């Protein structure tokens, strides 16, 4: 089962790196959209500082959501999803492997770009380490919950737009606690409670999201 896991992660990473522009496009969307905010709301430092955690999290969420279609869609269209589902390992292992590869090529680059953008938005320095820790706990949950949505819309009309309608309500808890953690740190309070809840959401999503996703994939394949 572990060899299947590593094989699928290896395969997806190779495919993603071969088509290297995907990760770069996600980071580019993140950077460009965050940069739009000073143009939109004015460059006044304390206004930007006030909204920095929220803006960073919302745009990271959107960037993560926009990259979900390459999780299953390409494999579904050329038939390799059906072949991959025939392995003796449970379908959940396949889903976790694909989500891991997705997070490595989407969540990690977003985390790498976040400190630079936090500086651009004049975020208070107390919040940086909490931002990184919160994103470390939050972005895998985003990939896991997003996988449910990506699996549900395989073969649907207008699947890309539909996935956002399905997934954004489920993303809201991660957003609330992610921003809450950074806001607490910036104001000098301990972010421990919010970080623990983010960890709890991740631990709950780890078994349940692959289960729901494999149910969705199974009825997409047949």
């Amino acid at each position, binding site marked *: 089962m572990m060899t299947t896991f590593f094989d699928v992660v290896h395969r997806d990473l190779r495919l993603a790196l071969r088509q290297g522009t995907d990760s770069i496009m996600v980071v580019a969307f993140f950077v460009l959209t965050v940069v739009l905010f000073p143009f939109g709301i004015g460059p006044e430092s304390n206004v930007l500082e006030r909204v920095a955690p929220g803006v960073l999290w919302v745009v990271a969420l959107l960037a993560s959501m926009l990259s979900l279609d390459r999780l299953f869609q390409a494999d579904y269209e050329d038939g390799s999803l059906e072949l991959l589902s025939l392995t003796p390992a449970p379908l959940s292992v396949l889903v976790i492997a694909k989500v891991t590869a997705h997070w490595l090529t989407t969540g990690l680059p977003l985390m790498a770009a976040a400190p630079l953008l936090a500086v651009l938005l004049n975020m208070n320095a107390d919040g940086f380490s909490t931002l990184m820790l919160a994103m470390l706990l939050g972005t895998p949950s985003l990939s896991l919950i997003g996988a*449910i949505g990506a699996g*549900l*819309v395989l*073969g*649907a*009309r*207008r*699947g890309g737009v*539909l996935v956002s*309608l*399905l997934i*954004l*309500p*489920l993303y*809201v808890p991660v957003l609330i606690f992610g921003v809450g953690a950074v806001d607490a740190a910036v104001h000098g309070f301990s972010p421990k409670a919010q970080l623990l809840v983010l960890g709890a959401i991740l631990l709950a999503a780890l078994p349940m999201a692959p289960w*729901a996703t494999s*149910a*969705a994939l199974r*009825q*997409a394949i047949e």
Partner: protein
Amino acid sequence: MHRFANPARFLRIAAVVLPWSAAATALFLGAGLYYALIASPGDYQQGESVRIMYIHVPTAWMGMFCYTAVAVSSAVALIWKHPLADLIAKASSPVGAAFTFICLVTGALWGKPMWGTWWVWDARLTSMLILLFLYFGHMALINAFDDPTRGAKAAAILALAGFINVPIIKFSVDWWNTLHQPASVVKMGGPAIDPSMLVPLLLMAAGCKAYYILVLILRVRAEIAGAKIRTIRLMQVHGRNAA
């Protein structure tokens, strides 16, 4: 439960239940509105505008109840492949969305004179808004596929994934410091509300419940008829050996 899986038997039972649920709706809503608008006291602080509560609270209860109905019938459809469960989920979803929408609108209309604001982003209001979006997602997903059974199954999984929101709504006023009033009816220690207001509230809730059953029967009958029409059309197009 599997006795009722036969659509023809369901239709026979529905034909019997329908007039009774229509009568119950008229009776309970009529009595509830009479007590709510005329025969119950105004609030000592809020005066007469407390009467919005008699619509706001039952529709909130129904919004959560309908989502629970959608989630339960989705689970039944996925586990036992009960043929009517998919139709019940599909039929309940728009009704629940409408109740949730009415709850949010009446809440805003009540909040403006009482709190001074149409909307506030506290836990209860935010989680009810998320419930509305979950309903919209459910309805969109059902209709997003050319094959209706595929849409029903995908939506069933989504309904179960979103069910976590319903306990969050119920306990949000206890877990967070919210502007919305904490629980006064369904809580430990019994209702904290006077019987002169509790009775109209429960009458309106019973009326909304009867209305839901009435509309559910009409909608499921329509869905069954729609499935028959689809089958007939497929047979016409592909010849008698198809479908």
